[in-house]
Every structure is written in structure tokens, then in C-alpha cells.
């Protein structure tokens, strides 16, 4: 049985349904990231798990126990807020100890717990300060300390890194991951940053307009998106999605990609013979930039790599890689080439398509074809 279960959850504000039939389960010690654009309901979902928002229908279970009716303090959870929500008039030590104080834990025990947690987060020297005297990263640590000291069954993080500058964000991300590895507590984490989602999660849940799009491991979400939204949302630069036509041919179906000025590009759908069933149909051909390379940079372990001649439109050297833009199917397509690939604008050169990684969507329903 899974540790955190969300079954058929609905949340309505009057007539507006903000969460529609959410089903998620998470194993003990897992790291679930709720990700989606702003307004998709991910923070509301987290609030319902915390008990700060009631749910209209469905059930939430933590460690097998139904918590729908339980007060937030009785659910054995701890939460880190986006604004950290440190109590401004209390010192760091008082902030961390406030929960224990509320539950009537005796003072020596409180002090011991504060010492233990502050040691772990290296904030011992800050214990006497007020939140206003701390930097962003320090506040973040204190907020985590306040959650850690409870030793809860589930940690809830609500966009905890979005108030930090770029460098600190990466550092704190690593720190949260390390913390998770060390204490092994189950975590539910909300973010709109898909890189945070990929790097931290053991499971990702993608939400859009209150509807759960897909739940899976980061690899599943990244490599096997169920629809165009998930494919487009995860990954940076985003997946190339090109309108294409399938032509059955004799035994190998061909993918035809229209081009503005030149004749259409035809690629054999090697490894995707099932596409024959969609003979003559329009599809969306999805390929990630790293699966579209120069011929020498193609993945040698891939089973099906096909090459096609494309015209280089823009070259963007990024140091570690060179991003090359070409136009296919009326859209810009980004290829990720080796940094020392010799590419010049206007040149016609072979692009290697790793068909193992290619995905196809129905252009109308935007659902995955398989």
C-alpha cells in the first residue's frame, strides 16, 4: 500500500472547479513534485494535503490513515511556505521551537531538538537573530529547520526556492535533495520550474487547469509524455513539435515534414513501424533537441538514427553545446549539436534524428499516438 494516497479528489469554490478528479499515490520516502504553470491548482492541491483547504470530494490518506477531517496540526505534516512564513517577532530559535511550544513539549526537550536541527542545517550561529536580520538563504534554512524539527511523516514544500536568486536556488536545490537522501522522509513539493521537478523528484505529477495530466518518474515524464502539454512543458529548450504527414510506403512508413522554400523532408520512420496504421494522417512529430544532432554527435547506443539534410537558419553557441535552429513544418526546430561541430548559417547539412526518442501526437486531441 502506498504511503500518501489521493483518491478522486475534487475541489470546488462555488461553481468553479479548481481540482478535477486527482488520483496520485506515493511510496514511503518518495519525493513527489507537483508541477504546472501558474494557476493550474498545484498549490491548492498541496494546501488540501496540508489541511489548510478542505476538499469537496474524494479522500486523502497518509500512512493508511484518512486525514480529510483532521486539523493541519494533527496530520503529522510540516510545511515550508513560499514566503517562508517565519514569525517576525520571534528569534530563529523561537521560530523553530514554536510548534513544540504549542504542543506543550517541555523546555529542555525543545532546546535539545532546536540544537540538533540547527546543527544539521548549520544555523547554530543564527539562533538568537530575528528573521529580518537574515539573508534569503538563511531564512530558507530556518524555514526548513522549523519543518524538520517536527520529524513529520510528510514534508510539504510550496515553491520554496522561488524567492532566491539563481545561484542560491541551485545550491538550495542540491541541499534539499541531500536532506531528502539523509532523512528519507516523504516529500511533496510544488514548483513551476520543470528543472527543479526533474532534478528533485522520484515522481512527478504534471497539472494543467486542475486536471492531472500525467504522473510518473522523471524519465517517464520526460521520455514518454502522454500529450503535447506535458511534452512541451518539460525540458529546456522545449521539445520540437513539428506538423508532419505519415506515408505508408511498402514496409517502412515515411514521415514527411513540409518546408517553406525547399522540397519536403522525408524521413524513414525506422523503429516506428506501428505508424503504418496512421497512413496518410497528419501528426505532430516530437523530438527533443538532444535527439536531433549533427551526424557525428548522434547517440551511438541508439538503435534507430536517420539522417536528413536541413538548412541551418541560426547558430547559437552555448559553450557546452551549440544550438542550431532550422525550419521544418513551418516551425523553428532546435538541434543540440556538439560545441565543436562546424556549422555555418545558410549551410545545408545532414541532421541526425534519433528515432528511439521520437514521439507522435494527434494534432487534434493532442494525445500521444502509439
Amino acid at each position, binding site marked *: 500500500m502506498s504511503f500518501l494516497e489521493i483518491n478522486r479528489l475534487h475541489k470546488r469554490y462555488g461553481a468553479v472547479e479548481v481540482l478535477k478528479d486527482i488520483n496520485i499515490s506515493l511510496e514511503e520516502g518518495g519525493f513527489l513534485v507537483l508541477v504546472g504553470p501558474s494557476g493550474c491548482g498545484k498549490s491548492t492541491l498541496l494546501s488540501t494535503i*496540508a489541511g489548510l483547504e478542505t476538499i469537496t470530494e474524494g479522500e486523502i490518506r497518509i500512512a493508511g490513515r484518512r486525514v480529510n477531517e483532521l486539523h493541519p496540526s494533527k496530520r503529522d505534516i510540516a510545511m515550508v511556505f513560499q514566503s517562508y512564513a517565519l514569525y517576525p517577532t520571534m528569534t530563529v530559535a523561537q521560530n523553530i521551537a514554536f510548534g513544540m511550544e504549542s504542543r506543550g513539549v517541555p523546555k529542555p526537550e525543545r532546546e535539545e531538538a532546536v540544537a540538533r536541527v540547527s546543527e544539521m542545517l548549520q544555523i547554530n550561529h543564527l539562533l538568537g537573530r530575528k528573521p529580518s536580520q537574515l539573508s534569503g538563504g538563511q531564512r530558507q534554512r530556518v524555514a526548513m529547520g522549523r519543518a524538520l524539527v517536527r520529524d513529520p511523516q510528510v514534508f510539504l514544500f510550496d515553491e520554496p526556492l522561488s524567492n532566491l536568486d539563481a545561484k542560491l536556488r541551485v545550491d538550495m536545490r542540491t541541499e534539499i535533495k541531500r536532506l531528502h537522501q539523509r532523512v528519507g522522509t516523504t516529500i511533496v513539493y510544488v514548483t513551476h520550474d520543470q528543472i527543479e521537478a526533474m532534478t528533485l523528484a522520484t515522481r512527478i505529477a504534471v497539472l494543467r487547469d486542475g486536471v492531472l495530466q500525467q504522473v510518473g518518474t522523471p524519465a517517464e515524464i520526460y521520455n514518454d509524455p502522454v500529450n503535447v502539454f506535458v511534452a512541451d512543458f518539460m525540458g529546456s529548450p522545449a521539445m520540437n513539435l513539428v506538423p508532419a504527414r505519415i506515408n505508408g510506403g511498402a514496409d517502412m512508413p515515411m514521415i514527411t515534414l513540409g518546408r517553406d522554400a525547399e522540397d519536403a523532408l522525408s524521413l524513414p520512420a525506422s523503429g516506428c513501424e506501428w505508424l503504418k496504421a496512421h497512413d496518410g494522417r497528419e501528426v505532430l512529430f516530437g523530438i527533443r533537441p538532444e535527439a536531433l544532432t549533427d551526424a557525428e554527435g548522434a547517440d551511438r547506443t541508439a538503435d534507430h538514427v536517420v539522417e536528413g539534410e536541413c538548412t541551418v537558419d541560426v547558430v547559437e553557441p552555448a559553450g557546452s553545446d551549440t544550438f542550431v535552429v532550422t525550419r521544418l513544418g513551418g516551425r523553428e526546430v532546435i538541434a543540440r549539436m556538439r560545441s565543436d561541430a562546424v556549422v555555418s548559417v545558410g549551410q545545408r547539412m545532414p541532421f541526425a534524428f534519433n528515432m528511439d526518442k521520437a514521439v507522435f501526437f494527434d494534432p487534434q486531441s493532442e494525445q500521444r499516438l502509439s
Partner: protein
Amino acid sequence: MAVSTVDTAVRTGRLMRALIYALLIFFAVYYLLPLFVMLVNSVKPLDEIREGNMLALPREFTIQPWLTAWSSAQVGVQATGLAPYFINSILIVVPAVFISTVLGALNGYVLTKWQFRGANLIFGLMLMACFIPFQIVLIPMAQILGDLGIAGTRYGLILVHVVYGLGFTTLFFRNYYAAFPTELVKAAQIDGAGFFRIFRRILLPSSGPIVVVTVIWQFTNVWNDFLFGVSFADFSSMPMTVALNNLVSSSTGVREYNVHFAGAVLAALPTLVVYIVSGRYFVRGLMAGAVKG
């Protein structure tokens, strides 16, 4: 060309500044003059006042009028001075201010952080209390005080002032707490703190400026109230303002202007002290409340 423009700009600036200062000094003097007259004449013997020059400094300095006003002037039937009524006022003002401030803070807390259906409607209705003229409630209030059996007592006056102050104190605290981050309340809820603990430990410690504003506002209003005092108090519970009126308008004997002046200053003193001590918090608090809400 550019230089000359700058030059004129500076010169007009100086002229403007002189004008502004002149105006400010004029108004400062204008507003301070009555206080000056009161203070100067309260330390003169009566003969000197009779000479007719109210603005002159005392030739002969005496604190006798102050002592008389405080302890031996004829206020009612007995020559008790203003002292017992001063005490009365304190005994009315302190509880009335305390209770209305605490209730206002609780109202503001509930109206912003424990929102319920119709909260805004209730707030709107409470706000109406700020606009109801005192005179309208006199008769119903007298009825209620009579029914409760506290007519003519200090408790009756405390109740009246608490009820009347609630609209304002609620308004102040609601607007202040509307800007207070709700995430803090949620965090405290998860930490297991209940309704009152959150109020006492999280909100109240951050409420300094608005508490000062409310206390000053309520203190001034309740202390300076005359209408409720004259309507609902009897001789034993009469507040300072009513006593002062009785002192000044008594028609027997010689009119002791110097004693009247001293009594008036005594009556104004507590509010003056409150403003001087906490005036800058008042302004700061008003601004804090004004930013959002």
C-alpha cells in the same frame, strides 16, 4: 541660459521656503495661543486677570488656582475640587479603552484571518457605528442602562464607550491585519497553535503601531466625551469634562477665572501627555494602516 534658469530656480526656492516657514510659524502661534493664554492666566492672581490683559505674563506667580481647582473648588454641592472627577474619568477611560481595543483587535483578527461567509457584510455594519451621531442613541442607551441596572454608574459609562468605540477599533485592526501575511497564520496552524495562541503570539507582537493608534484615538475620544457623561452619569460617577463644566458655569460667588483656566488645563492634561508620549507612533501607525486595506 541654463545657468540663469538654475539661478532663478534657487532664488524662487528660497523665497518659497521663507514663505512656507512664515506661514507655518504663523499657524503654530495661532494654535498655541489659547494654550498660552490658559497657562499664563492659571498662574495669576484673580486681580491681575481683572486688569484685562489676558496676554500679559504674570507679575506675581502663584499656583494657588491649581490647588483650588484640584482639591477645593465648588464643583457640585460640596467643595471637593476636580480631583474625584479626575479619578472618575481615569476609572472610566482605562477600562473602556482597554476593552474596546482588545475587542477591536479580536474582531480585526477574525474578520481577516478567519473569514466566514458574510464577514464583509458584518464589517460594513460595524463600520456604520462610526457614522451614527451620538444624540440618536441617547434614549435607547438610557433604556438599556436602566434595564441592566447600571444607569448612573461608571460601569454604565464604560459600556457605552466600549460599544461606541468598537466600530473604530475594529476598522483600525481589520485594515492593519488585512496586510498581515496569512501564510504566517497557516504556518502557526500547522505548528498546532490554536485561535488565541496565534493571536497572542503571532499577531499581537506585530501590532504595536496600530495598538498605539487605537489607544490614542479611544483615549482622546472617551476622555473628551461630554454628552454621554452628562447624560448617563450621576454625581458620584461624573467624569472630568462634566465636572469642569459645572465648575465653570456655577453661578454663585465670584467667577474665579484663574481657577477655571487651571481646571481646563487639568482636564486637557492626560490627552496632551498621551499625544506627546506616543504622537510619532500615531502618525507611523496611521501610515502603516493606510498602505493597504
